């Protein structure tokens, strides 16, 4: 059985929009209670909630209810928001992977187009690249390298697992566009001949 005074103080602390101290509680109770007595009752309330999903905490002599820190993950649920990496970001990531460590200017030289700051930010947010110091050249630009998270995501044991240029060529990934076009046209011609025969 919880006594009336304890119930009253508990309800006041619950319904208050600011933490309350012993003096404020006593004033609202309109009772001749000493801060010491109030404090003892508050301790009882705190002890009663101990180990539950609600805790009474003291901050600079003021008390308030809150949820325990170890349950924060339930109150702030994280939800995945999957996004496909843009073409530009894929190119920058590939260049860093093949040429690391590499500066932004070097990336731009390889790509032949300007690279926005946002693209590098996205790759850093994904934790696939990280700064790797500065290049000791005029301007001391930041240089970037790929991370372990990068290797994990793309299923690579190490950077050596990245296919070489010759592998890429063999896989058709380095075929110039116009050659591929010619081949496609050639196939069309054969089909037409077949029809005539």
């Amino acid at each position: 059985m919880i006594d009336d005074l304890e119930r009253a103080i508990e309800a006041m602390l619950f319904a208050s929009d600011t933490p309350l101290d012993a003096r404020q509680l006593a004033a609202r109770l309109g009772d001749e209670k000493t801060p010491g007595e109030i404090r003892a009752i508050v301790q009882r309330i705190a002890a009663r909630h101990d180990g539950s999903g609600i805790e009474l905490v003291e901050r600079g002599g003021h008390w308030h209810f809150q949820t325990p820190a170890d349950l924060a993950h339930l109150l702030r649920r994280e939800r995945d928001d999957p996004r496909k990496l843009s073409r530009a970001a894929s190119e920058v990531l590939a260049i860093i992977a093949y040429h690391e460590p590499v500066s932004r200017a070097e990336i731009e030289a390889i790509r032949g187009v300007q690279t926005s700051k946002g693209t590098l930010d996205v790759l850093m947010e994904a934790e696939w690249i990280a700064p790797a110091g500065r290049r000791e050249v005029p301007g001391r630009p930041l240089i970037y390298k790929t991370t372990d998270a990068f290797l994990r995501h793309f299923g690579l044991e190490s950077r050596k697992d990245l296919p070489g240029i010759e592998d890429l060529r063999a896989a058709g990934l380095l075929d110039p566009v116009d050659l591929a076009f010619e081949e496609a046209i050639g196939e069309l011609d054969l089909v037409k001949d077949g029809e005539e025969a």
Partner: protein
Amino acid sequence: MEDLPLEYEAIPATAERDEALQLSLESWEGPLDLLLTLARSQKVDLRQISILQLVEQYLAFISEMRAKLELAADYLVMAAWLAYLKSALLLPKDPLEEPSPDELALRLQLRLQRLAAMREAAARLLARDCIGRDVFIRPQPEGLHDVRVRRWDASLYDLLSAYGQVKIRTEPAIHMVSRRPVVTLDAALHHLERLIGVKLDWALLSDFLPTDYDGPLRRSAMASSFVAALELARQGRVDLRQDGAFEPLYLKATSQ
């Protein structure tokens, strides 16, 4: 209420009249409200109430008010309707009259019961423990939040093909034009000039083509040879003959 005299309904409700109503009848929200209050004054169950007595109370009240102040149209409309009901209730019953005064009175009684029931329900509802008055909730709860975490996705293929595209875009472009199997007009002309001397009679154009040509090369040779034949005909060196559209084309050296 279909028997209401029209002139009462036609009374316009002006702002002044509304103000007067506020002063005189501010306690009542409409005639039904007033009737319910009067019915309550009979201090009996609404089911046993005397409608006749109620009607008389209402009419007395309205005439008293009317002496002092103007009344809103709906109060007068109700007064007229109740005056009619009163006379119908007092006069000997006409069995043919529809609806009967008893039925009209019953209807009024049922309406008053319902309004009274809802008024009481509202009072009991407001007497409950309401949030912010009797019970209190946490003023500023932390709230439950959904935090969206962006998760970037790309496959190894995306990565490698992106690198391939960078390489292709930036490598010095070397254009390798593949040799196409064609027979040029000059070659066809030369070939045809040689052969027309050999063949004396009409011969098919296709017979002039080299027999080892096939595929695209043969089609090219056919096209070139046809143009070459036209050129030789223009020069008057061959005659051309075709028996009809899309028929085979024959040619022969002119007999000069």
